[in-house]
């Protein structure tokens, strides 16, 4: 008859082993590559099969590239890491922060046509909670005027 201590250790190993197994499998199943447009292109060049792997791209929206397909909820826009530009198509609700020049993370896969089909779109803002004044007369605040909330608010007022 094994001692209680041994039995506890066996039970503990079972619990932790199961947890470890779940962790390992769920990482291999749900873990997502986080790449820049350049890294993605390099990988696809090396292995065309990589197109079918779901990835996240972190990049910046090319100013002026955002188009909305009339009648639908699709967005077309380009993102870049400075070296390479990737066209992205996204269908769904875009976050408030999604405007020209913001950093975004898009998740999805690269299509055969060279367009990235995104299923999720996250927009980041470097000054999310803190907003240091630089020079009171500096431009740059204009970008918020492009956001839907601002436009519709001022549009009807005028």
């Amino acid at each position, binding site marked *: 008859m094994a001692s*209680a*201590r041994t*039995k*506890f250790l066996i*039970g*503990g190993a079972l*619990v*932790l082993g*199961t*947890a470890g197994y*779940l*962790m390992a*499998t*769920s*990482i291999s*199943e*749900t*873990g*997502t*590559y*986080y*790449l820049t447009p350049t*890294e993605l292109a390099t990988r696809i060049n090396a292995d065309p099969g990589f197109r079918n792997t779901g990835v*996240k791209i972190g990049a910046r929206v090319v100013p002026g590239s955002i188009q*909305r397909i009339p009648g639908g*909820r699709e967005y077309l826009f380009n993102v870049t890491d400075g070296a390479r530009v990737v066209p992205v198509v996204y269908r*769904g*609700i*875009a976050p*408030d*922060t999604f*405007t020209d020049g913001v950093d975004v*993370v898009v998740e999805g896969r690269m299509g055969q046509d060279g367009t990235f089909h995104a299923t999720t779109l*996250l927009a*980041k*803002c*470097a*000054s*999310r*909670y*803190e*907003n*240091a*004044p630089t*020079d*009171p007369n500096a431009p740059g*605040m204009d970008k*918020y*005027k492009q*956001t*839907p*909330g*601002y436009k*519709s*608010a*001022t549009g*009807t*007022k005028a």
Partner: protein
Amino acid sequence: MILVGELSLWVALLMAAWTVVTSYAGGAMGRDDLVTSGRRGLYATCLMIVLASIGLWTALLTHDFSLRYVASNTSANMPKIYVFAAFWGGQAGSMLFWALILSLYSAIAIWSVRDRARHLAPWACGTLAAVLVFFIATTCFKANPFDRLSFVPADGRGMNPQLQNPGMAIHPPNLYLGYVATTIPFAFAIAALVTRRLDSEWLGIVRRWSLISWFFLTVGITLGMWWAYVELGWSGYWAWDPVENASFLPWLTGTAFLHSIMIQEKRGMLRKWNVVLVVMTFLLAIFGTFITRSGVIESVHSFAQSPVGFWFGTFFVTTTIATIYFVATRLKDLEAKAELESMVSREAAFLYNNLVLVGIAFAVLWGTLFPILSEWVRGTKITVGPPFFNTVNIPLGLLLLGLTGVGPLIAWRRASTSNLRRQFTGPVLFAVAVLALLFALGMRNFHALVAFTLAAFVAGTIGQEFYKGIRARHTMHDEAIPMAAVRLVARNRRRYGGYIVHAGIVILFCGFAGLAFKKDHDVQMKAGETKELTDPLGHQWKFVSQGTSTSETLNRFVTAVGLEVFRDGKRLGIMTSEKRQYFDSNKQPQFEPSTEVGIRTSAKMDLYIVLAGVRDETAELRISFNPLVVWVWIGGMVMAIGGLIVMWPQAERRRAGGYVATLEPASRPELAVSH
């Protein structure tokens, strides 16, 4: 006053450094004069930090925009309460706030042991002061809220509208109160290790402060979830974001400690483990702050990147190494005084509870750090999202829920068959009945069924305990039932307070299980258009758009949509959802637009309407049915109430005078900062 505040900060740094030197020297040489001097140094540090804080509050409330911090975080047209809360809203201010709480806690903790724990106190005092030196130095050199701008702007940049919410004004201070309280147990653990006085004295002091920390973390996390839900408009409350995880980690190890400490008190086991848990809780609190401040990990909560991260990293590594050294050299003093006797015993149940809690903590830490780890090991960043955390933590969480029912009722040492039968027959039957009922009602989601069944089991055990206790008082003391119930809890606060915490856990899990039935619908509606949807409970909902409107108030433009809502043909009223664009005194827009969600809460389900945008007079909406969400907040509150009952002072005053001193001040820091 602002200048006084700034100078006080520097004096505080010197005072804290003085305290470190005199306390450690006094402890090592056994010189009472040095120890006394160190203690006074700590009080003086506290006073200086309070002055510095008053200085910063003065600057904020008088709108002195020459200070970078004031200009960056507030504007003249903001409501006063948020100007006040801006103290902890930004990086530099939150560092000072941390130092403020820590100095108050430290002063109270050291004052409370002024005539006992003679050997521990100097070392604890020195350690607390050392941590204070770190925080004050970081504030002074790397994140000084008193830094001035080269020009004086006409107005500040305001506070992010998402932070202008009552929940957000009190959520961060609660988390800080929880994080910082982990320092006191850490300091006494170090003191006990250094002096090799690893008996029950340090544990008594530590338990109290661990409870305080646990209480504030619980309240803070719950408020954070509530804030995310009502303010961020993504219809969820927990996204496994690194910052959320950072607050969850010390909560997990702290909870584990509050359970394992009972085993040490009753059976003298787990002595090493308890020291490790105390230290780990503190380190995780520091580590959490490090990862969120350094920009090492991507998070939606990110503070501006700053050198503070490096300082935290260094502090973390130094403290870890020092602690490992002390634990490793004191292993002999930490030998267990008893052995585990049976797998079917309270000890074993508590051990598994600890294992699961720490297992969850490890999984959460692993998932949080995985992008960094994978980049180091394989050269590519791989991120894991909610699916990872859910896959691992749902089974572990359910196991924990089951143990919540077993642990408090099973016998110590070795449970007999009759003990098991007596305690668990009722709850098991009740759980089976609930399972059968839910199955008959058509519920087929596996995880939800397990969750509700286990919840019923635990609820059964708690109900049974209360029933037995109340009946005993009712018959023995001839008390009326309500009086018996009140006295039962009041006379055994630790035990029945604990049950109330567990009841909160049960409620919380029921709320979580509701997520399995959540439904989201993305719809577009013009004025006058109608949409019909079916909710997860089978009710028919009809929404009639009243069109969109715009308006302007004090500091924002508002775009709103109104929906007339009908359920099963019955009119429930009009719900609105807004998009807001905040602006400063010159009508310059500030920040990104934010969302004001329309929420209709009921016990069974929340209706949650988000206005995503308006285009060509068409409102784009996301309508969500979120079952049982309200129980998450209620569960959190019940846990907090249970925690309060457990740590309420008078319970121990009646029993032993020795604890009074540590207890009294417990609620004071809260008062000091919440006004």
